[in-house]
């Protein structure tokens, strides 16, 4: 009963071959074509899911791997066609040293950089967000600021605590140096009690993050593009134009 005439089978297969790429596209994005755009002088770096460090996270986690991003950041710095970089953040945090590595790389890029926190930029997402030359946060986005913690095997000696304390200071120093928030205020938010149900820290929402001086402004894509284009204009300067 299942067997169809062989001629029909052949026809079906031919149709399938023709439609397969279209069907695949519809299955992937729910649409059959995507718009084409001209070459962009602005590149985009998205930091999504968890920031993965030295330990590989289980396969079902969405992660941002620093070993993938660091070469891209070098490429952005080195490619003369790229004039600016937008960093999109929607992260729950992750490895402190991987996050700091990314933050330092972004902070030391000579080209204008703008970050946008969308949804969430928690924990180690905070230094990454402030590392850009100018930072934006969506009005509904949040950033959780809390003390760092270790998991896995921890050697129970006072030195472990000292090590953690120093690591925390590195995060605090970076955020204070790359934003306008006062160190005292940042520590107050970090060690606040009663804000998070089962944890120490504060969940800072869009406008509050700007009020505290952590983020430069509330905004989205258009604000970021305007700011970045403005900075690109400043970066080129009048001297370059004379040479050209």
């Amino acid at each position, binding site marked *: 009963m299942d067997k169809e005439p062989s001629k029909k089978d052949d026809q079906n297969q031919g149709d399938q071959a023709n439609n397969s790429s279209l069907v*695949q*596209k519809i*299955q*992937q*994005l729910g649409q059959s*074509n*995507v*718009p*084409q*755009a001209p*070459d*962009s002088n*602005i*590149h*985009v*770096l998205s930091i999504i899911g968890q920031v993965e460090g030295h330990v*590989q996270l*289980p*396969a*079902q*986690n969405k992660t941002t791997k620093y070993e*993938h991003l660091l070469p*891209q950041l070098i*490429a*952005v710095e080195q490619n003369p066609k*790229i004039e600016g*970089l937008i960093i999109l953040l929607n992260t729950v945090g992750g490895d402190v040293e991987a996050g700091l590595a990314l933050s330092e790389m972004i902070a030391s890029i000579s080209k204008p950089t703008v970050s946008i926190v969308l949804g969430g930029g928690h924990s180690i997402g905070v230094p990454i967000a402030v590392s850009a030359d100018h930072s934006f946060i969506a009005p509904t986005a949040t950033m959780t600021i809390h003390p760092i913690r270790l998991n896995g095997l921890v050697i129970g000696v006072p030195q472990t605590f000292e090590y953690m304390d120093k690591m925390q200071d590195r995060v605090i120093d970076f955020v204070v140096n790359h934003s306008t928030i006062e160190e005292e205020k940042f520590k107050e938010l970090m060690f606040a009690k009663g804000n998070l149900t089962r944890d120490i820290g504060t969940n800072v929402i869009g406008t509050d993050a700007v009020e505290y001086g952590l983020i430069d402004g509330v905004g989205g894509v258009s604000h970021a593009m305007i700011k970045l284009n403005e900075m690109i204009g400043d970066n080129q300067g009048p001297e370059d134009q004379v040479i050209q």
Partner: protein
Amino acid sequence: MLYTPLSTTDIFPSSDKEFQKRQCVSHNGKQLYVEEREDGHYQVLQLLSTDPNDFMNPDYLPGTILR
């Protein structure tokens, strides 16, 4: 039945097999994070690029099967 705040992976760690199927490859000069399918083809999981135009290229959509 489990009643716990821990994630599933904390209780049942995923096997190394999952990771072995995944790798980072270069395809036409673009870095792609791919997963090997049962039939030996590779399926795109993620495009690793900063160029927004690369994401407009239908050949690199997540889920595309590379041939």
